[in-house]
């Protein structure tokens, strides 16, 4: 415990995007200060204990929070799931990128599956909401639509291909 306090004694500030909202968290020993961008600061004393692989028990003023680290930037607190991206103070760029979105846009597969059909060709102009690619998984077909008007810069997959979640399927510019 003592060692831990010493280890964390210096105040460290983290920039965060939580559920799409920018926020910041500053930890000092077993205290932390949390602030939503533009919001008031909340300061708390806490105690954290490991409760098995990827699970934490966090106590704040006697209130008990069971925390599960779900991976891929997801955290569950008392059964409620949050998407949290933590950025090192240094790399502000990363954070803004997560907040905004502009320029050529990579269309990633939202789920693992198989590409059933590609509905556009490279160079084609597409309208917002226009169908681009059909991916199938678990007996369910899903049509991926364009988030905005633009032009298909490149197609990175083909009908019949197996894809993982996050694979870039095509790029809109």
């Amino acid at each position, binding site marked *: 415990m003592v060692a831990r306090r010493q280890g964390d004694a210096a105040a460290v500030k983290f920039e965060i995007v939580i559920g799409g909202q920018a926020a910041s968290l500053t930890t000092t020993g077993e205290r932390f200060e949390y602030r939503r961008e533009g919001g008031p600061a909340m300061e708390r004393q806490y105690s954290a204990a490991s409760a098995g692989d*990827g699970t934490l028990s966090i106590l704040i003023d006697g209130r008990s929070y069971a925390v599960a680290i*779900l991976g891929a930037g997801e955290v569950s607190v008392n059964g409620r799931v949050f*998407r949290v991206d933590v950025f090192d103070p240094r790399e502000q760029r990363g954070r803004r990128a997560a907040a905004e979105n502009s320029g050529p846009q990579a269309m990633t597969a*939202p789920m693992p599956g198989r590409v059933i059909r590609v509905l556009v060709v490279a160079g084609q102009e597409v309208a917002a909401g226009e169908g681009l690619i059909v991916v199938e998984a*678990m007996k369910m077909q899903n*049509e991926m639509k364009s988030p905005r008007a633009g032009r298909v810069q490149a197609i990175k997959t083909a009908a019949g291909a197996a894809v993982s979640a996050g694979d870039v399927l095509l790029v809109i510019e």
Partner: protein
Amino acid sequence: MFQKVLVANRGEIAVRIVRALREAGVASVAVYSEADRASLAVLMADEAAYLGPAPASESYLRIDKIVDAAKRHGAEAIHPGYGFLSENADFAEACEAARIVFIGPPSAAIRQMGSKTAARKLAISAGAPVVPGTESAIDNLENAKATARDLGYPVLLKASAGGGGKGMRRVDREADLEAAIRDASSEAQRAFQNGEVYLEKLVLEPRHIEIQVLGDRHGHMIHLGERECSIQRRHQKVIEECPSPVMAEHPELRERMGETALRIARAANYSNAGTLEFLVDRDRNFYFLEMNTRLQVEHPVTELVTGLDLVQWQLRIAAGEPLTVRQEDVRWSGSAVECRIYAEDPDQQFLPSPGQIARLTEPAGPGVRLDSGVYEGWTVPLDYDPLLAKLATWAPSRETAIARMRRALSECMIAGIRTNRAFFSEIMDDAEFRAGRLSTAFLDEFFARRKAKAPDLETEAVAALAAVLDQRKPTAKSSIAPTSQWLQDGRETLLR
């Protein structure tokens, strides 16, 4: 009783049946595709037989391979579970031809009930009320228009070989009829290799209530009451209950529907376990829809309330034993609710979410029953339907069963893939659900009135703190980019 039984299915229902066989002292043979080599069913069964590559068409739908596996392993009977070949009369006949007992109804009953139009005719002949409509498939547009006019719009197009809402269309005006028939028919063709569709009057905001029947091979049949299955998403059941809230207020309805169900089942010379589906309108008129000639996914709520083990009775009945439970012995005690935990993402129009289960915490404790087909470390294949587990709770009253479900859901944690767990917690808190005001329109209305509760600031802060404390840890593989830029329309997800 049998010495050895082959389970011709996968996932949670294969596990359910393997457990029943173990309890009955019967050796079990699981089957598996390449994707299921290390499935929970294979781990738990006494023996396991390889069928083929992952696609169901090359494994779980291959009658020849399954019958062959049963012979090779010396299984005297086959339990088909639900889905796959469970309602395939050819499979039942192939078993009979191979002198293997098919644990289900006679193939003739399967065949008769397999065609919705034939089932309608049978129900009518048995004096059961059906939704007004044609008994026969649409042959030409003009007749269809005439029929629709007689029924009065809105009408419903349904696939004769249908199920799961595929090939189903609501039509509000004659102008839309032709296109709807074309779409429905082609969808039905894709789904069932049979494009036949027919017309029904659309019953507005009905409850979907089904009656469980159980009959032996010596002419004795009983009903085990109803299951309320109104909560559906795209015609897929999501939450089921027993008893139905409407029965609580109107117990005589259970008697009337039970009697009707038995009349229809007897007319089909039915035996073993079966379920008759009905629509119930606001005035509690009920209409026979179709019969499922197999064990239902949602059978646990009936087991919890009646104390009868449906799978054990399926085995005994198939072994020729008499059903020793009389109708007057059946008691409905307390209330049970079931949630179907799917590998899907409620925050992204319920997109499928296959992949590896990085971590799993299962709920337990009083009044909780979990029927799961997965384990921590298991990779959920993308080749089959997304049902991971069924979570059911029992309590003396519906209110406490719901409270217990909320509690159980709060204990359930699945990491690595997305599931609809949290979505169920929202429904358990919904005033309309708690009041038992249900209809097949429930979920659409729920989505409309649903507003995500904002987390209190401290909980959010703890999430941020935990993420910071965890920085070092690696992240799971198959999860979905949060700020995914796709625009999706839930209603579009099943392509037309």
